[in-house]
């Protein structure tokens, strides 16, 4: 292993490996401290960044942060690396790469994506300020489609998340109506079920499919269950649109989720074979988030942001419709407060986008973290400027199943209004066709009037 050194303020700093250097260069966060990987002082952190700026990008191909022999995610990263695409930046150091990214245009960034590894983008993000992360991500366009088209410039899609703590169909339907009337659901109508039992998951899938078909909504449903449950249900003919799975950046962390790359390969093929998309064939929905590898004690001494970026290599293999970093979900032991959550959100979004993924975010926090609804507003605004493909929305920002706070449907309306963003084109046309779109393209407030969609609710109320 190489060693990396720098001198700052008359003091000499030495980092014993690329993984050590990356960890020390990372912005302050509680998870790296918990793992014993964080820089010991503010000065050591900056010294690490000076050293990192001089590291050639080719070093990341020569020195994997987790050995090739022991980790299938490392093998995936190196075996699928596109050296032709990499040629554009192959002669650069990490510091030079930062400047290249800031100056690059949209088409250069798109051409480069297959030539980048997660470690390269994680490294360069550590040299970037929050504004840099926004500026570069904003230029990247990643477009995917199933029944709606996600990721077009000037568009912001939302996941309508009508969760219920006991999966009560009436409760789910009531929340579904609320979200639709607020113009939400073009990225996906997605439920986190309280159970992973195939029967309960199937009931929810059929409920969502019924509403989508009845009102001809150009969107897709997902009940976020384990990939094995989805495979079982697909075999039995259940209406599965998207296959969901939580993924992480190491083989061992994925094992703690009960998944392997082989299992994901099988699920991907099965979902594609169903051919349920109308305007596109991206069939996978992945969720990630900093801290999951550490939580599973499967981080191999790699800092949590670099491991998170490696999860995007797993996602990239399956041309997903949506990749959602659930940024503040796990808790303060990984991201302590609103400031750390914001930084992680911008890093994740940047890294995923630059690697070629349709990145969206669950901008969220738990009640044991030091954050509040003002942090949601700040993050939402920055991620909107950065061009996030979609955000997760819950009624009033309060998820009653997972017990955390996320953005609300109102927050998404705010973001679309202040930044002039519009829903996915197919969904926008549908909103117009059912009278939910105002003359200026805004979502009409129909809460006090009749609307055809309220038939969903009137049947429940009867």
């Amino acid at each position, binding site marked *: 292993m190489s060693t990396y050194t720098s001198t700052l303020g008359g003091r000499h700093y030495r980092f014993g490996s690329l993984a050590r250097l990356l960890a020390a260069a990372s912005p302050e966060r509680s998870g790296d401290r918990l793992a014993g990987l964080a820089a010991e002082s503010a000065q050591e952190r900056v010294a690490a960044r000076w050293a990192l700026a001089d590291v050639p990008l080719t070093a990341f191909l020569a020195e994997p942060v987790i050995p090739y022999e022991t980790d299938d995610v490392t093998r995936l990263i190196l075996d699928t690396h596109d050296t032709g695409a990499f040629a554009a930046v192959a002669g650069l150091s990490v510091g030079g790469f930062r400047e290249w990214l800031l100056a690059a245009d949209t088409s250069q960034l798109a051409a480069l994506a297959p030539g980048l590894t997660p470690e390269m983008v994680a490294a360069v993000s550590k040299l970037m300020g929050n504004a840099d992360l926004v500026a570069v991500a904003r230029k990247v366009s990643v477009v995917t489609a199933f029944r709606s088209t996600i990721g077009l410039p000037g568009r912001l899609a939302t996941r309508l998340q009508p969760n*219920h703590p*006991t999966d009560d169909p009436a409760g789910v339907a009531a929340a579904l109506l609320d979200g639709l009337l607020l113009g939400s659901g073009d990225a996906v109508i997605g439920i986190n*079920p309280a159970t992973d039992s195939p029967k309960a998951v199937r009931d929810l899938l059929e409920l969502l499919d019924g509403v989508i078909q009845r009102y001809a909504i150009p969107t897709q449903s997902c009940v976020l269950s384990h990939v094995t449950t989805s495979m079982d249900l697909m075999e039995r003919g259940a209406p599965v649109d998207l296959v969901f799975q939580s993924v992480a950046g190491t083989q061992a962390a994925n094992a703690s989720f009960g998944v392997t790359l082989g299992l994901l390969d099988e699920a991907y093929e099965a979902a594609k074979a169903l051919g349920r998309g109308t305007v596109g064939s991206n069939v996978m929905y992945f969720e990630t988030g900093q801290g999951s590898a550490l939580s599973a004690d499967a981080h191999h001494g790699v800092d949590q942001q670099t491991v998170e970026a490696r999860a995007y290599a797993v996602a990239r293999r399956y041309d997903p419709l949506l990749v959602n970093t659930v940024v503040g979900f796990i808790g*303060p032991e990984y991201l302590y407060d609103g400031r750390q959550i914001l930084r992680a959100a911008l890093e994740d979004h940047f890294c995923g986008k630059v690697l070629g993924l349709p990145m969206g975010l669950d901008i969220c926090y738990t009640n044991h973290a030091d954050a509040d609804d003002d942090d949601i507003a700040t993050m939402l605004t920055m991620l909107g400027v950065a061009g996030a493909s979609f955000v997760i929305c819950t009624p009033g920002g*309060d998820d009653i199943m997972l017990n955390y706070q996320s953005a609300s449907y109102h927050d998404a309306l705010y973001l679309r209004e202040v930044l002039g963003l519009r829903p996915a084109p197919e969904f926008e046309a549908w909103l117009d066709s059912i009278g939910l779109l105002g003359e200026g393209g805004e979502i009409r407030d129909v809460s006090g009037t009749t609307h055809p969609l309220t038939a969903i609710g009137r049947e429940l109320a009867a």
Partner: protein
Amino acid sequence: MTISQEVSVDRDLWPSLRRHTQARIGLGRAGTGLPTHHRLELQAAHAAARDAVHSPFEPDVVATALRGEPTVRVRSAAPDRLTYLQRPDLGRRLDPADRAHLPVGEWDVVFVVADGLSSRAVHEHGAAMVRATTALLPTAWQVAPVVLAEQARVALGDDVASAMGAEMVVVLVGERPGMSAADSLGAYLTYRPKPGVTTDADRNCLSNIRPPLGLTYETAAAKLAGLMGRARELEITGVGLKDESDHMEVSERLL
């Protein structure tokens, strides 16, 4: 039907729909924002949840509600709440001094009632779940004294079961408080847990035990006891053990 009648029908819709869910639906709008009273209600709920996280665990409350069932009290290696919140590794390990107090035996199962992130959930539902579940277990099963664990996370149960020689552990833990539920209990079942080796994928989870709004004790206990029987038959819990009825899950998002 006149327009005014139509309007009144739909103004009445949301109250009737709210019977089906605690979700904050039909809040109305002021421009793209929330009406003021809803915004303040959300802030009040957030404040209550923040306070719940920091309320101390009182093992006496659970011990009293267990009405004479034998109990043992332990602490994790996390000395206080602030450390606990930032050091999950400490919350997963027993305080070494307490390990020696745990009774070793041929236990089929040990119940661990752990404060987790809401001692309120444990005070209100912990004892009732232990009683409801043990009532459904075969009489031949050796049930260990109930372990009451402070500053404890789910995986502390692995350490407890291993120290006591128990074949199976059920951790009843206070889930992190949401804004609509500060008293929700989770149940995690693990067969032959090994500290440091057992992963999240090796557990089965039942969440949102919180009658009357969440799962009732009777329903939760029936599912849990059924799963414990099958775990013993198949000698496994986690991804490999699916409940074909309903309401059991592999949690990917443990405390």
